[in-house]
């Protein structure tokens, strides 16, 4: 049924349709509307037998989900940013224990300095924890991915993170098509755990594993994630057939057929990228887009295949590995290692800075002419940065760096 609702609400309704049994809620911007909506739905009795637990921290949220999932219940929680970090230990634990928890991450920057706006630092910081990471381009895809996520998680016995841009998607009202309960039930079967805490058949879960077997256990975790590489596209197809629209999958190509320059990106920015690219195409530019829907496991083959004809690649990402550069670009460069194709890294949108079509068109045009640095910080105020650094060179007690940046920023007359 078509609805015009907030992204958070759409996700909450989709999760409710998946018949969760235990939902853990701890508030953090910008995910709060999701757990609030779920709380309302549980209180209204709209979700069958579901326990909604207000926990005392994100660490508790993931831990309660761990206990619930291990006891055979379909468990869900949501978080962002600092909250994701606070549960980091539990993330690794859930993945290592093979518990099919589904969690929404409303992507948000990580402090210090504190910043509540969108970028991908949070999910990226946990890219190695063993969770499957899916990225939604629109609110429709966000709700659709949750339905796929539960099935994927339970089939593989691996937890799945559905990433959606905080505020940009979570707080945007747009049209979504909400499936019916029957449609979801047909796609998502009842949870049949591979392991469960059951007095009738006692097992010990979470024992120590020594040097003799740890490598094999970790290899299997890796191998299981790799299984997702075939399951995800297969079930995305199944989803498409059952629900009548494309959602998920490993990658989403756009205008790639004869593209010489390909823009690679994740999440909601793909919309703006496509608008920018369409205009450039209209001017004769052979440029296309590759959306990455599944970031972990990294779809090497799918990406290599999609970029097979590209003369140059521009990775547009909302993430930064301090001391290295881009994160997504590193994955792309590894994928394209056999081919000597320039991969430009454009780091944009950090801490919620809007990514405009105009800025993108300019940087894409520079890329097309190969007049771009290998790593670019989009819309960086280089002069400001230099002033701050100069201040540090001159003065020992130079003060907190972020505050100095803010001071410099506001010293410039407003444009």
């Amino acid at each position: 049924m078509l609805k015009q609702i907030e992204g958070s609400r759409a996700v909450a309704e989709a999760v409710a349709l998946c018949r969760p049994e235990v939902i853990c809620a701890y508030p953090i911007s910008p995910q709060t509307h999701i757990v609030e909506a779920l709380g309302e739905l549980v209180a209204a009795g709209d979700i069958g037998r579901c326990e909604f637990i207000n926990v005392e921290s994100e660490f508790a949220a993931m831990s309660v989900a761990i206990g619930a999932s291990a006891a055979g219940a379909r468990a869900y929680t949501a978080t962002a940013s600092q909250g994701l970090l606070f549960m980091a230990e539990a993330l690794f634990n859930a993945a290592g224990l093979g518990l099919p928890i589904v969690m929404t991450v409303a992507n948000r920057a990580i402090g210090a300095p504190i910043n509540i706006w969108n970028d991908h630092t949070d999910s990226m910081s946990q890219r190695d924890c063993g969770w499957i990471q899916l990225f939604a381009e629109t609110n429709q895809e966000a709700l659709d991915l949750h339905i796929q996520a539960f099935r994927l998680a339970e089939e593989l016995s691996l937890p799945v993170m559905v990433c959606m841009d905080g505020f940009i998607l979570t707080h945007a009202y747009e049209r979504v098509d909400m499936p019916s309960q029957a449609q979801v039930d047909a796609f998502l079967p009842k949870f049949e755990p591979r392991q469960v805490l059951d007095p009738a058949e006692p097992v010990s879960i979470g024992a120590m594993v020594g040097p003799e077997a740890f490598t094999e256990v970790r290899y299997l975790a890796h191998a299981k994630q790799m299984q997702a590489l075939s399951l995800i596209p297969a079930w995305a197809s199944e989803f498409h057939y059952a629900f009548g629209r494309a959602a998920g999958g490993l990658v989403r190509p756009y205008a790639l057929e004869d593209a010489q320059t390909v823009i690679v990106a994740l999440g909601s920015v793909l919309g703006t990228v496509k608008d920018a690219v369409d205009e450039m195409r209209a001017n004769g530019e052979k440029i296309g887009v590759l959306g990455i829907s599944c970031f972990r496991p990294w779809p090497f083959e799918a990406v290599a295949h999609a970029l097979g004809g590209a003369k140059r690649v521009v990775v547009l990402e909302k993430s930064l590995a301090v001391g290295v550069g881009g994160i997504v670009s590193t994955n792309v460069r590894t994928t394209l290692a056999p081919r000597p194709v320039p991969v430009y890294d454009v780091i944009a949108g950090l801490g919620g800075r809007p990514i405009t079509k105009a800025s993108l068109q300019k940087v894409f045009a520079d890329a097309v002419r190969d007049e771009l640095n290998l790593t670019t910080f989009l819309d960086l105020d280089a002069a400001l940065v230099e002033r701050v650094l100069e201040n540090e060179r001159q003065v020992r007690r130079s003060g907190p760096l972020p505050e100095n940046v803010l001071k410099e920023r506001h010293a410039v007359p407003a444009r």
Partner: protein
Amino acid sequence: MPFQPVKYYQTGTFTVGNRLLPPETRSVQANMRRTNSLNSGHRACQGCGEALGARYAIDAAMEATNRQLVAANATGCLEVFSTPYPETSWQIPWIHSLFGNTAAVATGIAAAMKAKGKHETRVIAQGGDGGTTDIGFGCLSGMFERNDDVLYICYDNEAYMNTGVQRSSATPPAARTATTTTGNAFGQGKNVPLIAMAHGIPYVATATIAELHDLEAKVRRAMQFRGARYLHVFVSCPLGWGHASDQSVRMARLAKETGIFPVFEAEHGEVVSVSKIRKRLPVEEYLKPQRRFAHLFSPQKNLEAIARIQAMADRNIKRYRLTDA
């Protein structure tokens, strides 16, 4: 013929034994049909108080719950010695997640059981003092505040034993540990049973491995309640405390008889029963046999420290009315 009641007491570490008691008052452990939930073959140290306490507690819980029990266990001695790769000595469904989240994991299990309508399956969370009073404190309080249907059992051996005897917030003043080599400071302490009572939860109790019938009875009592329950069990650690491994039960008895460890029960925040000291002893009797307190006696006696510890014991005796004096 006049009826004269006879009371049996445990003295030393040799007990009167269950065979002189009527069957219904014998311990669960005395029963051939006990579940052996913490089965033999685990790797606990000789004389481990925690292994003793856990064995009694869990078997009693199994009996009280008609064998419908799930346990979540914190990282620590109990978890490590009970599940040495590739073995497990647990005969119940058991999960070890992390060090600080056991109460939360148990909350999750209880929620799952509720969602699935499995009302008869009961949940225990268990951990040492480190995992309970320090790193697990936030999750513990959260579980109390929500009144989740979990019995949390803390086996308190007063330090992070598994990692090599480092100080925890449960380490008593003056005790030597690897991180308090000249003796722990006289700090504020952290009285978790009282904190549990401050949450007003249905049932809080303390127990020791010197009174195992009492421990079993308290587990049984705890299982009669629904909601958050907390049991704090004083368990000796020969290795960490520096006493002979056949003195574990005696150390626990001395802790009670000196007033250092009050044994009581509370319901909804009010003390409802107290296990009185049978024959009061000065704290020195408790401190002397433990090498972790050796520096209080040699090269010379630290009268001030001993007096302060005595004062703490006196305060407990007065506060909980542990003697009839």
